[in-house]
């Protein structure tokens, strides 16, 4: 009788799966979000793109009309916690027990990267009590942003302090490492560059923490990324494409006309006769290249002919970038500029600009020399060029965080249909599915116009 009734083991899904099969699933969840919906969010807020006036899809983003009931971003929050962070956690737990430190470092770096995106968007998040739903804790407590940052640094440091194999990761893991193909030296560089990014973000709010952390890294001879940390396995096949292309440009939507060239970046490139313009935007249907003023999506087609405006140029097989090569150089340039790191700020700046042009396959010419003058002018050049470079890697969200931190670029236009009374968006409100279900989560939505803790400039 007991045997007869013993048929309740799910035959459709495995009871267990090895860490090397969990890792790519988690990375793709991170990539699908930061390279998908967050690339759209960042692309619009960084004013690379604006919403087309003959379609509807991203009006709420372009007008900062995002409230806690917004299901799109609730879906992304859910995907990151239950589709990415949880699987990194399973890998971290198992590999730590097994002493499999290559997998531990990879999962820790990717998880920390993902956590930073979340805390930069939402401020307070849950980290130490999160991801314990199957251990009986479905109501984790939240931590203030600075504590999250400190936890991330501590976790990465712990992972780096273990015996990480030289050269390649273990065989199954290497084959399934969709970021570096098991090259552990690159993973260490990624870990260091991520730390640098976390410290730099605190340059205004906790300059002493940032300085101490960065100085310690340079003192220890930390090496940073000289290639991009990205996922470059996409192909032009349904459900296997670059996520931004798949969701915005393929047939998932009725129209692929939503993302138009924002006049903000368009004019910057045009004024500098920057050939990256043609690599970032498509020729308009009716010919030529043209931008559209940020947030003018309610213009009638008589006022603005949608066929005359350039669309975003997105390739189906483009990689999803976590930290691009150019970004790494710009981060280092800023660390040196601030006197926290050692090296040549101008050379690092130039390496960043070169990397951006090279990545888009166009010639820099003599454009954008590193300016003389003081700290502020040079910082402005670094961050403004980082903003352009991140457009080429669909990393608008990172560019936007940096704009909030530094105020550069300093020529953003408030979107015409903005609903926040002239105040730029500063964050995303926590999805109400979190506050409603979890009494330990913040219960009062923080408005979209309230700055994140590191945004004090």
């Amino acid at each position, binding site marked *: 009788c007991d045997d007869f009734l013993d048929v309740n083991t*799910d035959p459709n899904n495995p009871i267990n799966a090895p860490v090397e099969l969990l890792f*790519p*699933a988690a990375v793709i969840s991170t990539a699908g979000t930061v390279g998908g*919906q967050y690339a759209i969010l960042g692309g619009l807020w960084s004013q690379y793109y604006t919403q087309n006036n003959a379609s509807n899809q991203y009006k709420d983003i372009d007008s900062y009309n995002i409230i806690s009931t917004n299901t799109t971003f609730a879906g992304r929050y859910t995907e990151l916690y239950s589709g990415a962070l949880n699987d990194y956690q399973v890998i971290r737990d198992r590999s730590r027990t097994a002493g499999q430190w290559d997998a531990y470092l990879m999962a820790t770096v990717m998880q920390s990267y993902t956590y930073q995106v979340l805390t930069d968007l939402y401020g307070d*998040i849950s980290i130490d009590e999160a991801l314990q739903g199957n251990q009986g804790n479905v109501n*984790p407590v939240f931590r203030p942003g600075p504590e999250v940052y400190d936890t991330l640094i501590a976790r990465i440091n712990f992972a780096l302090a273990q015996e990480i194999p030289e050269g390649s990761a273990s065989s199954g893991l290497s*084959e399934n490492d969709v970021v570096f193909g098991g090259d552990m030296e690159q993973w260490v560089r990624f870990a260091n560059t991520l730390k640098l990014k976390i410290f730099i973000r605190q340059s205004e709010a906790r300059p002493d923490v940032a300085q101490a952390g960065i100085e310690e890294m340079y003192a220890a001879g930390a090496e940073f990324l000289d290639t991009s940390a990205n996922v470059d396995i996409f192909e032009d096949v349904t459900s296997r494409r670059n996520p931004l292309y798949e969701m915005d440009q393929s047939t*998932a939507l009725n*129209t692929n006309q939503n993302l138009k060239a924002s006049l903000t970046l368009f004019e910057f490139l045009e004024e500098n006769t920057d050939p990256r313009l043609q690599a970032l935007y498509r020729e308009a249907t009716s010919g030529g290249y043209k931008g559209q003023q940020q947030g003018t999506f309610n213009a009638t087609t008589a006022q603005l002919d949608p066929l005359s405006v350039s669309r975003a140029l997105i390739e189906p097989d483009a990689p999803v970038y976590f930290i691009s090569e150019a970004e790494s150089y710009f981060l280092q340039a800023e660390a040196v500029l601030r006197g926290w790191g050692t090296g040549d700020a101008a050379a690092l700046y130039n390496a960043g600009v070169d990397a951006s042009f090279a990545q888009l396959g166009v010639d820099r010419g003599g454009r954008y020399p590193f300016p003389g003058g003081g700290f502020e002018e040079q910082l402005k050049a670094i961050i403004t060029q980082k903003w352009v470079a991140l457009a080429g890697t669909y990393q608008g969200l990172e560019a936007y965080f940096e704009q909030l931190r530094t105020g550069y670029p300093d020529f953003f236009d408030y979107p015409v249909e903005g609903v926040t009374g002239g105040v730029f968006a500063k964050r995303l409100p926590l999805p109400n599915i979190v506050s409603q279900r979890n009494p330990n989560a913040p219960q009062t939505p923080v408005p979209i116009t309230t700055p994140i803790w590191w945004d004090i400039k």
Partner: protein
Amino acid sequence: QEAFAQGRTVTGKVTDQATGQPLPGVAVIVQGTTVGTSTNVEGAYTINVPAGGTALQFRYIGYETTTREIGNASTIDVALGVNAQQLQEVVVTALGVEREERSLGYSASTVQSEEITRARATSPMNSLQGKVAGVNITTASGQPGASTKVILRGYSSIGGDNNPLYVVDGTPITNGSGNYSAGGVNRTQDFGNRANDINPDDIASITILKGAAATSLYGSRAANGAILITTKRGQAGEKPKIEVTSSATLSRPLFLPQLQNRFGQGWSARFAFEENGSWGPKFDGRQRVWGNVVNNSQQLKPFVAQEDNLKDFFETGQAYLNTVSVSGGSEQSTYYLSYSNATENGIIPTNADQYDRNTVALRGSTKGEKLSASSSLNYVRKDASVVTTGQGGGGTTLFQEIIQIPRDISIVDFEDLDNPFNTNDNYFTLYAQNPYWPLKMNGNDLEENRFFGNITLDYKLNSWLTLSARGGGDVAAGVLKDWIRPYDYTPGSPNATASPSEGFVAEINTLARELNSDIIASTNNDLTENIHLNALAGFNVNERYGKNTTASITNLSIPDFFDLSNTTDPVTATTLTQQRRLIGVYGQTEFSFMDYLFLTLSARNDWSSTLPKNDNSFFYPAANVAWVFSDMFTDLPSALSYGKIRASWGQAGNDAPVYSIDPVFVPGGTGLGFGTINFPIAGINAFELSNQIGNRQLQPEITTEMEVGTNLGFFENRVNVDLAFYNRKTTDQILAVPVDPTSGFTTQIQNFGEVRNRGVELLLSGSPIQAGDFSWDVRYNFTKNDNEVTELKEGLDEVLLTSVFGIRFVAEKGEPLGVFRGIDYQRDSQGRIIVNPATGYPLAGEEVKFGTAQPDFTMGLYNTFNYKDFSLSFGFDYRKGGLFYSYTQRLTQFVGNSTNTLYNDRLPFIVPNSVVTVDADEDGVPDVNGEGDLVTVPNTTPIEADHVVDYWNPSSNPPIERDHLRERDFLKMRELTLGYNLPTTFIERTPFSNANISFVARNVFVWTPDNNNIIDPESTTFGNDLLSEFGEFAGGPTTRSFGLSLKFGF
């Protein structure tokens, strides 16, 4: 009359009037007393008649109750005649046990074959619409073979199954749809539920057991009631009989959207030849060029409304239902063999809506001294194609395309896809697709072979104990092929900026299998002269197994070759296997005292494979009492001819879903919001932790129900009343409760909460006129079900059922199951609408409750008139109250086709009863003073004519979503039939033994309130369970049908 003062003995024999066979077990009662006996095996009886006894009453299941004056007789022999009316009083109850209606302490409604086949519905349950109190039967759409939803006494389960258990000849059958129906907002195909596979002409009767006390013997499968279908069999001793039933019916749309005919193509109050809407100028009759320029030419037509463009699109559907059966029997054996064919082509042009069903049924029985055997075997072959509903890019669904065509454009003129103006490149708008594209280029084909039936052996161990064994099964194997043709746009063509389609081909193989066996010991004997015992004990084993294998491709290499080989991409394949087993033991005891007081006790214990291993046993008790007080008391008013009071209590369960206990890993991949990324990519595969937390303490949902009721007959049963009150509580609801995703999981399977259904069911039937050749029979039923979610988990106010475009459909504590919620206007303290002072548009406010999907009450009325050989019958079905969501309303409103968009003749208007906040900040965001009150003054900013379109668009006026909910009330004329039996005098000269010709019509008309002029409120694209109450998403019209039916036997 002194002579009768003392008691004396009367003897006699009771026989069947037709066959002359003796009838054992006939109740013989001295009228007006409690004295009674029953006949023995030879049909003989002996009764002591007390002093004052003047007449004997003879009662037997299925026969006319007969009364004989005793007079001076000492021997009274009686031949009882079968009475059709009386036949209804034999009721098939749980496990196929036949019982007298009078002995039941719960409500059981039986519908006979004639009612089931009269109006020639292809699916048997559809014939019961509006005929039975407490039963909600809805057809999802007008497409051939569409799903039928049957809900008994309201929805009890928030997250589980609310469909009743279907049992054919004692063996449960599967009622799933084989996962062919996706249901919901996306491209959906409804191939119907499997209860619809049964040929109505094969059915002798359907008994509906509504309450848990009636179904408790089915244990953890019976929380939603049971539909017991008894099929036709041969009669012992009957000569071979051939019956032929043949009908042909035509169908037309019953209810099409009533659209405005005042404004034509355009947007923002201007003509625009490429727009998919009617926001253009008023019709003026002038000749205008319209659509795209193709080869330097453009089409020309007068700017006038095409009032019938929707109606003209639909064709006349055809349905044929033919059955031929042969039946008969010897003294020991019977046989019944039938073949039927149902062929339908629905109202959609082309053969995209096609249903073809062939059934063969074979039943036999043989009876020996001790051993008897019977079988019921059925084969069904179903071939169907359906038109997809819901939304889908690139012309993959039909109805969303046709309802957004501007009012001045003819739809039928798009039929020729080779016409250069009708191609994808040049179709007049790039925002929609030529509706003939999905019809002609895409499609689907289902082929399903199904075999179900059972074999029963009865062995009479001795005079009081019988052993029965019944083994049955239901195996359905289907293949569905589904295809979408790819297309690309010619660069530079007018629609070149629209998204191309890569095409799609899928093949879904489905196997659904249910095996069920029972072993039952039963006894039936007199304990004393007055106390009779009926008892049974049984053992049940049940297994249900399902396997779906889906293989699909996209990116077709050859556009019109729909095969899995036709791609450069890898084939995507998935399998889904589900298996569950159940073991049950059960018993039932019925005591009857003097044939007027009955007590039935039953109990079942189930062990289920889907529950935790150490805690998988559940017990379901039930009890009921029936008291025929009119047979106990002698001094009741003569007008009351029959009176019974009944009461029952019982429990039943709704078993847990499979594989809900242990956590698993699932194939990796990520949803992007739109589109997905799936593994394998670049030769790498992946798995990830499932997002559902398992539950090692899982229990079934438990339904506990109490019911009291009465059956009353007046004026020699010319007027009958059947009244029931019930109170049903369903606890331990099984739900995947959403948890904070921060926990790493999105849901957790839990038991909690309670849903209560309590209500009243009334059936009034009578024969007001019976005069000579003329008679009038009428039946009226009324149902009021009060449904409430009485408890949810602590801290959980609501469970989201579904949400579509800002309308959320939730289970909310203290409310009926299925509440519509959405964003209201921002309002001041007086309830006036606050608008943006710059634009005049309303501002979005708080979420509020808009109403519920549940009705206030429903009722049905049926009339039958007979005059000589003519018979006229018709029935109405009425539903009052409730709302439903209509995407047809939303889309027609968005494109300016619906009539409500004519508000104020589309001239500039100030939102009625609107105000502005005067202390608002410069930025237009209303400010709040220290007390939290808004200071508001009447609004003077109108919405300009060219922005009226945006007022009706939820993206600029979110609270307008409320307009997409419509009132669900309707009155339908369900049936109208006029039949003529050929007179015997004529029949005698033919080989026929009987012949009937009828005009039949179903869904003759529908009335809806003014608020709903858009779609039949019964139509749904959300399956046939609780979600279907949400409403419809670009579903098609329902249909009316009318035709001729012929029936003859020889």
